[in-house]
């Protein structure tokens, strides 16, 4: 569906542009309200080694939060993992052990309340997905609440950018009322968008009850465009923790293969976090269309604007397998 739409749109745009002398498709194409965004000069991203999903995770997560100079004391924190599907053989979702460790870390650091919230993009039956993925067990053990964002109460949010024609979105009250929204994606390739990380993970806040499963409206509007509009619409303070202990390569985000990286990535700027993650995957972030665009107004994508702390990313960089149509994303460092 998406590729048809994108194809027809781009074919039509290219045809029109080619027929008009001097018209370049990328000329003065700023699609955001400049007054609403002020990109910081530099962003800090912490990469910490985490070899396994084990008992050390809570301390590693707490270290990542401290290193990022985030003080969550007194905050109502909403953790938004990536929980989209279940495959007993696969590594689709943010690992429940990391979610449990993050709940513990935020509580230890003084958060007033920590809830886990997700609006799975494929499956509507949360009871099944939570149990099959193992998250029910960890939620019970940590005595943490779960909110189904697909059916939460919603509020209308006017978009602050115009990559899609949506103009507005209805978004869940749980997300909009959080003091801190923590995107917790899995480090994965994505067969439509190249990579799926902190920014793409926000698809899960778009309520299925309104937009359906698999949130097809966003696909019709263009995945990259939707990623940009959703993230630009959010004014709630954000933090990002990426599960890069075991990532997914190849035909992600559902059917790719497992890839052990052994790292967690932390930071407040989702663009900088995602750029760092892309580099860990052996991908040049500025070649990922939506990351390059996000780097123009939502955050920092260029290496010189990102202060790396913790581990040196280059030492953990891997050569993730990419689908043929994304081969051009490969960084020269691994290619």
């Amino acid at each position, binding site marked *: 569906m998406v590729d048809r739409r994108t194809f027809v749109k781009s074919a039509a745009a290219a045809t029109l542009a080619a027929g008009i002398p001097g018209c370049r498709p990328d000329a003065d194409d700023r699609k955001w309200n400049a007054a609403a965004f002020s990109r910081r000069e530099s962003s800090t991203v912490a990469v910490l080694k985490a070899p396994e999903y084990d008992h050390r995770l809570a301390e590693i997560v707490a270290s990542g939060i401290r290193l990022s100079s985030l003080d969550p004391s007194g905050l109502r924190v909403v953790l938004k993992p990536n929980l989209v599907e279940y*495959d007993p053989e696969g590594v689709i979702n943010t690992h429940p052990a990391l979610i449990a460790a993050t709940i513990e870390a935020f509580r230890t650091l003084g958060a007033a309340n920590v809830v886990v919230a997700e609006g799975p993009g494929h499956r*509507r039956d*949360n009871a*099944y997905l939570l149990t099959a993925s193992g998250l029910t067990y960890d939620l019970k053990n940590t005595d943490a609440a779960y909110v189904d964002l697909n*059916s939460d*109460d919603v509020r209308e949010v006017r978009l602050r950018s115009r990559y899609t024609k949506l103009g507005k979105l209805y978004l869940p009250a749980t997300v909009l009322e959080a003091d801190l929204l923590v995107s917790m994606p899995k480090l994965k390739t994505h067969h439509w968008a190249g990579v799926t990380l902190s920014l793409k993970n926000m698809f899960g806040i778009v309520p299925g009850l309104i*937009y359906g499963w698999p949130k*097809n409206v966003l696909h019709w509007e263009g995945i990259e465009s939707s990623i940009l509009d959703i993230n630009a619409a959010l004014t709630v303070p954000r933090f990002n923790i990426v599960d890069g202990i075991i990532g997914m390569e190849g035909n992600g985000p559902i059917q790719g293969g497992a890839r052990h990286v052994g790292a967690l990535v932390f930071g407040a700027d989702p663009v900088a976090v995602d750029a760092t993650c892309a580099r860990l995957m052996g991908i040049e972030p500025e070649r990922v269309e939506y990351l390059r665009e996000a780097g123009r107004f939502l955050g920092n994508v260029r290496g010189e604007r990102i202060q790396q702390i913790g581990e040196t990313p280059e030492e953990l960089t891997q050569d993730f397998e990419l689908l043929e149509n994304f081969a051009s994303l490969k960084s020269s460092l691994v290619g």
Partner: protein
Amino acid sequence: MRPYAPAEREALEELVASLGGSVNRDGGWGASAGLLSTTEATALASLALRSPSSEQSLPDIEPALDWLLSRQLRDGGWPLSDVVPGSCWMTSLAVISLAGMPRSDHMQRAAVRGGLWLLRQRGLGTHWLLKVMYRLNLVPRTESAVELDRDLIGWPWTAESFSWVEPTAYAVIALKLRRPQLPLHTPDDRIDMAEAMLLDRACPGGGWNYGNSRVLGEDLWPYADTTALALIALGNRSTGVTTEGLQALRGMLETNDSPLALALGILAFDMYGRDAGNLRERLIDSIDQKGPPGDVRALSFALIALSARGDLFRFDIDG
């Protein structure tokens, strides 16, 4: 109606109490207790609460029916909630709920108007330009990424988008229930095409997920809840696809204890005359051990399934 076993009766009482306890002051239900009323939850809860044994004291569903009737829009459809305006896919559930009510002209007229609204909605098909490109081999088939017949139209979740299994299944059920009151040929044409769409979207090996069977050359796997819904919508059609679907559903439910999946599984097997005794026992056990589900949709379907009122979705009950 057969008598209920004690454990079954106890489970039914718990479900009724839980559903009755989660109603909002405005008479409707939200997706779970404390959430704003939606058409879907209100329609399903009001449908479920007319089903159990007459021995039980049931909450009054009149306020829920009033909620539904007062929310119907001028175009005949229903909105998602008071916050999200505009007619939406939940119209099918309002029609199903009102169609199952004892005769009341007002409700039946509302259901027919809802049915007419449904007939005006359709999922998007293949763009004409792309059809030409396919015909001229300008776009490789692999580029289309998904392998399904885009010309088979069902119902979308939202206007101007593609057809998917769940909204199509609900719309088919609603239209079948209202078929005698709708314009002569149109419902049959739409139902026939939607059924063909559902059959086309079945996963290799049987069953349905949200509505894609293969992506980028890889098989996708089915889900229990959507498989059961598709089977119910297909209404006891005996084809290789439904037989495979029933087998796949049986297999999926061996490792799926979700109350929603078990309840819909019971309704699907009942409809096709297959044994669902084991699923009933597991659903009763689940309610006994974990309590009723918090999700009003699951709660409602569990109540309908355990009270053996699958006939609420049978299309020959409404003459």
